[in-house]
């Protein structure tokens, strides 16, 4: 099986990208695939809260700076899924100084990062033999996120049913994803009113998206209170294997496999 680099991206923040990324990574790992989850959200890192790594010194920031290889940065976090699979994580430096430094990086640095992301992808897929690499990116159209999307084999866009989110996502799909002929999958998350409350307006948005993007819409996930209630440190699909959210994510993972 040829390895695949999947980015999880969105137009706006708060769509549940990081939550979906970690749960999808866990599903794939528990299916027996060798999985790497990369926190590419350098402006607001999240995955360290989920995995609580101790004494971490190497970050993906070092890979993008050219001072390390991705192999030196990945941490075996399989314990987090009770060793039911192989799950490695690359963390973004979450110190305030590092975030400030990433924000202030020049345009030239961000441009050069594209080549390093391609190298990182090659090392992970070709040299280290990962089956699935999931990149959890920053929301919006900024260089580092665009770089990750451009280098991806499959780009997953997560949107809510919020008007502004849908409008921005649609524009982003047309102006960025279609330009690069990306293999694109769309997930509607926190679909409040759409599938659960049968709100006709929200249902219309979903119908429009499905008619425009057809099979690219791989999941419409309702808003489950229990999903939001669980601490990030507890991976939902592991603790709730029979919950409808877990079942839906398994379907999403299977559909992503077909890309």
């Amino acid at each position, binding site marked *: 099986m040829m390895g695949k680099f999947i980015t999880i991206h969105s137009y706006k923040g708060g769509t549940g990208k990081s939550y979906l990324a970690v749960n999808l990574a866990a599903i794939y790992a528990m299916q027996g695939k060798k999985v790497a989850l990369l926190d590419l959200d350098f402006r607001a890192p999240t995955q360290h809260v989920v995995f609580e790594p101790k004494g971490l010194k190497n970050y993906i920031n070092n890979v993008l700076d*050219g001072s390390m290889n991705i192999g030196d940065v990945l941490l075996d976090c399989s314990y987090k899924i009770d060793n039911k699979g192989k799950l490695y994580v690359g963390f973004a430096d979450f110190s305030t100084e590092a975030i400030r430094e990433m924000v202030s990086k*020049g*345009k*030239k640095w961000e*441009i*050069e*990062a*594209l*080549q*390093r992301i*391609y*190298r990182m*992808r*090659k090392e992970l897929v070709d040299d280290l033999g990962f089956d699935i690499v999931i990149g959890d990116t920053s929301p919006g159209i900024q*260089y580092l996120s*665009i*770089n990750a999307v*451009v*280098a991806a084999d499959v780009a997953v866009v997560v949107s809510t049913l919020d008007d502004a989110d849908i409008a921005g996502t649609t524009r982003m799909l047309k102006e960025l994803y279609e*330009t*690069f*002929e990306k293999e694109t999958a769309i997930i509607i998350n926190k679909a409040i009113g759409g599938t659960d409350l049968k709100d006709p307006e929200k249902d219309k948005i979903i119908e429009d998206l499905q008619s425009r993007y057809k099979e690219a819409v791989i999941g419409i996930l309702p808003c489950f209170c229990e999903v939001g209630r669980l601490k990030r440190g507890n991976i939902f699909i592991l603790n709730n294997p029979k919950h409808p959210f877990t079942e839906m994510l398994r379907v999403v993972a299977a559909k992503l496999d077909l890309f």
Partner: protein
Amino acid sequence: MSKVEVEGNALLRMEKEFISMRSYLEQIISLQKEMMQRLDREEKAPEEADNGSSGLSVAVLLRLPDHLRKTMVALSKLVEGRADEVASITGRARAIESGYLNQLVRLGYVKKIRKKHQIYFAIDGEA
């Protein structure tokens, strides 16, 4: 003091004032030139960053026509590769990819590397 001497002194004062004004004007013009040059440099900076040492950037990819962009993205995935390897990613014929890769070489985005009897291509300008 005669009338001629008074007029002569007045002319000398005026001449001095003119020289002083000219000096001020020259300083102002020189400062304006410097400011214009600085503004020009600042305006050009992002453009220069796009054309920086790296041969690969989103800006470069967006500037390329669709057919060359596809080739460039495929080569980027390989980091370094032959025309047939690029063709296996794009799904186009090897000969077509060879032509596109050579176009990218001429445009300065890709470099050609000869290894024994085989020709490899790589993105020019290592980051």
